[in-house]
């Protein structure tokens, strides 16, 4: 079967080859068949070239160039705008960072000032309180001493009077002074 197919194929090819030989066609004809067509090709090409060069290509070149310039310009403008936006954003972020830093600094300064003021007020209050306490203590001591002195004096006087009545004699000023001194000395020794 395969052999039959091959033979038929070769037969068909042979028929075509035979037809080719019978027609005597050639891909390159004699110069008489080609010179005028070649001249026609030159004439037509030159005419087409001339017309296209004056009426078509300049418009296409202009269109391509204008579009190219437009696109290039738009891209450049977009890049400029992006650059400006970036600069503005950078400046805004820088200002924001500065403002934040300044606010933080002010906050810290305020805290420091408040702490210092509080410490100062506390120290002042403590000093005043201490002075008031010391003054009160000294006044109490003074009052206590005065009260004790008055008490001793009164006690001596009373004791002197009682002693005079007991002794039935007049206690002189010297006796009284001596008794008072002795009593005071004794009281001091007891108190101490």
């Amino acid at each position, binding site marked *: 079967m395969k052999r039959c197919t091959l033979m038929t194929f070769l037969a068909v090819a042979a028929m075509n080859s035979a037809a080719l030989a019978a027609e005597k066609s050639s891909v390159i004809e*004699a110069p008489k068949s080609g010179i005028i067509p070649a001249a*026609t090709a030159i004439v*037509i090409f030159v005419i087409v070239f001339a017309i296209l060069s004056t009426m078509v*290509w300049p418009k296409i070149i202009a269109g*391509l160039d204008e579009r190219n310039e*437009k696109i290039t310009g738009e891209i450049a403008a977009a890049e400029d705008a992006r650059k400006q936006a970036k600069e503005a954003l950078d400046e805004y972020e820088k200002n924001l960072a500065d403002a934040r830093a300044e606010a933080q600094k002010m906050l810290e300064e305020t805290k420091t000032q408040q702490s210092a003021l509080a410490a100062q007020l506390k120290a002042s209050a403590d000093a005043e309180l201490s002075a008031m306490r010391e003054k009160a203590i000294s006044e109490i001591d003074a009052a206590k001493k005065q009260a004790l002195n008055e008490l001793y004096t009164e006690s001596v006087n009373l004791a002197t009077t009682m002693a005079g009545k007991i002794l039935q004699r007049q206690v002189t000023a010297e006796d009284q002074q001596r008794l008072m001194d002795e009593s005071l000395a004794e009281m001091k020794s007891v108190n101490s």
Partner: protein
Amino acid sequence: MMSNLTLASGDPVAHVINHPFIVNEGGWWIWSSAQTNLVLSGLILLFVGMFVAKAVQTGDESHGHKRWVTNSRFAHMVEVICGYLRESTVRPLLHERTERFMPFLWTIFFFILVNNLLGLIPLLDLHNIVAGQFAPEIVAQHKALIGGTATQSIYITAALSLLAGLMINWAGVRELGVGGYLKHLTADAPIFVWPIIIPIEIMGTFIKPIALAIRLFANMTAGHILVAVLLGFAADGFIDRGIIGLPVGIVSSGAVIAIYFLELFVAFLQAFVFMFLTTVFISLLAHHGDHEHDHAHEGATAHA
């Protein structure tokens, strides 16, 4: 059936090559199918070019931002191709001279492209079907008003290469001056090497456009003949409709579709290669003697 007969009849090359329409007594082809294709391609380029130019150019200010938008998908596609050729292909080679040569390079690219694509439309077969009805003698005499691939003719690719060669050398003279242009023929070699170098450089001046012509011609011819052969197989197979003929027809039809897509790609590729190599050759003359010379040579060789 008529189409199948048309495809199956004759040899595959006949579907690809140029056909005469008017031949004078001396045997000179006054008008041929390829010439009609050339005229058609020129008209297509002019009308499509006008339409694209109108769509691509910047609109009135009253349209606001929309004035910058190309209001046509097809025009946008052409604009993208133009932009790619200018910015990614030509400017890296020609730098500040890009604007000067771009109109020529765009024109040659689109001129070749349109002619390559016209070659993929079976205009000759359609012509034969119509002519077979109204003027059978034209088909019988193997004449055709339209069809084939203009860029398949070595004479037409040679004409386009001649224009490219003139542009390449004019650019060289303009860039280097007459003295500089003549000096580049020495390739800055020591004087005792000049007897070898100068003939080589002079030959190179002609070989470059010849290579352009042969490359385009060979690519268009080979691909289109392959498509025609496969279509012939498909037609033969479907006419035979036998146990062998039908599979051959089906397989050949599938193959021809695949090759057709390849040809579509080749149509763009060869137009690009022709334009690109023209650009490379223009740049070589400007930078002759620089280290870029070698890089450009490498690039040209790699792409060729």
